[in-house]
């Protein structure tokens, strides 16, 4: 039972991160019908920027509790600029091209970003500085630390905030209108290009936060970290129903739980044949299972017609 609770906590932490990243995939897909495979790299850039800023600020003697929000804001600003640029440079010229073109371009952007990051930050793992005394708490036999509590609460707050933007503001209304019918949205006076840019920037801001969360939780950042994380978050978005915001959140949390419960019990399930290092396969089992049995995802309705 302790293992169970522990894996639930781990799953919720990891799932929160997946959910934030999955939202970026799903928002862009909802509005453009495009899978932005470079999104995982935006998470990585966010983590790297935050880490660099944090290390520098702490080096200059800035107190950790001030350095952390400042670096987060810098990383968010950097990623928003990056997301804006990616759309502007790589996707916008291909807006009316056959679907394969932007998809291949997305993979290209992803490779470019990885290599740029490698040139800037090198191939080595960067350690996340010890900021606070990260205390552990015992809950029903399981352990959760301060960073994990902050991750879960922040992620939930961000998701609620995003839903409020999308459903309660005129910008959100315009985003939904553009997602549904770009011509009709233009006829309402909506600057479609602007709304698309804002969508990329919102997704990228969430990606930056997710990047900081991952590196704080694992204490590490690396130029290659965006690849697997991006694929898993994409899986989460597909699991929930790509294009559907609630689906991305649900899919993210579920995938986190599936992975961590899977990792916790895989040894028992296979009689010790496979160990928890196989946890990554669960995400892809899930992806395949969803694509085979329910391609529209748990809450989605239109993958089949659009992808």
């Amino acid at each position, binding site marked *: 039972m302790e293992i169970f609770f522990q894996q639930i906590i781990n799953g919720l932490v990891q799932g929160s991160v997946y959910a934030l990243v999955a939202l970026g995939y799903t928002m862009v897909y909802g509005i453009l019908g495009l899978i932005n495979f470079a999104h995982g790299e935006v998470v990585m850039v966010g983590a790297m920027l935050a880490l660099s800023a944090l290390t520098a600020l702490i080096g200059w003697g800035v107190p950790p509790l001030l350095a952390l929000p400042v670096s987060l804001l810098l990383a968010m600003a950097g990623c928003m600029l990056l997301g804006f640029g990616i759309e502007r440079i790589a996707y916008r010229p291909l807006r009316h091209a056959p679907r394969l073109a932007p998809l291949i371009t997305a993979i290209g952007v992803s490779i470019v970003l990885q290599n740029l990051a490698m040139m800037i930050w090198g191939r080595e793992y960067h350690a996340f500085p010890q900021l606070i005394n990260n205390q552990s708490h015992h809950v029903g036999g399981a352990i959760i630390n301060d960073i994990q509590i902050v991750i879960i609460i922040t992620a939930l707050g961000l998701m609620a905030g995003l839903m409020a933007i999308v459903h309660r503001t*005129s910008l959100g*209304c*315009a985003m*939904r*209108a553009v997602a*549904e*019918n770009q*011509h*009709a*949205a*233009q*006829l*309402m*006076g*909506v*600057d*479609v290009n602007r709304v698309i840019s804002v969508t990329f920037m919102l997704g990228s801001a969430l990606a930056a936060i997710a990047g900081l969360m991952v590196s704080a939780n694992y204490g590490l950042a690396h130029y290659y970290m965006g690849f697997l994380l991006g694929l898993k978050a994409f899986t989460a978005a597909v699991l929930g129903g790509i294009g559907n915001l609630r689906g991305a959140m649900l899919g993210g949390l579920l995938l986190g739980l599936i992975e961590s419960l899977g990792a916790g019990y895989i040894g028992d399930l296979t009689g010790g044949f496979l160990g928890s290092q196989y946890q990554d396969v669960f995400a892809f089992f899930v992806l395949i299972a969803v694509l085979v049995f329910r391609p529209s995802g748990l809450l989605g309705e239109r993958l089949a017609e659009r992808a």
Partner: protein
Amino acid sequence: MKCATIPASSPPILERRVNKLLEISGLEVGYGGIHAVKGIDFHIGQGELVALIGSNGAGKTTTLKALAGLIAPVGGQIDYDGRVLNAVPAHQRVSMGIALVPEGRGVFARLTVAENLLMGAYSRRDHAAIDDDLARMYALFPRLVERRDQLAGTLSGGEQQMLAMARALMSRPRLLMLDEPSMGLAPLMVKKIFETIREVAAQGMSILLVEQNARLALQVSSRSYVMEGGSITLSGASADLLGSDAVQRAYLGG
């Protein structure tokens, strides 16, 4: 068929120009290789209700799309309220007072009725007046009141047409363009929609009405243009066109 170019120096004609809200000269629009509109001229005066009729594929929708900015013209000029519109993007034309109710209505099916109406006012910044207009639209189309929190996709065709019109009016247009508002509607609903068109026109709004139902369009409008194969083939006072043999034979089944 082309209007002679008006010399800007001649005062009486200049006077007339000021009263033209929209003036189109030599407008050409195409889709790739297809030439859908082949150099047409027409104008709409302030407060005028003008109809554009013609059979399927004549180029009526294409003309409206070019006016709304959804397609860039290949040639010619669109003058609106003293400005050349050709290079103005669609979304900016809305705040200049141009509204189009597109063919097929284009309501946002996944937005509620109320959200659709608010989208109509998206380009406006006078928030207090928007609430007044919202109330006015609900008074104009009482059917929408009880459905305000319903997704627009669940409305009937007639209700969607009402919503599309109300949504366009929410932008407080000076030029309202309607593309086949009667399409697919039951006679009673057509009557209601055309009553509203009359009402709006009576308040002084300029209207460009595209209709398959030529008789109805000629009855409600003051002037009309007949379009055929991408060109304007006839124009004049609607009452005269209603009586003309050519129109009777081609469009009124007489």
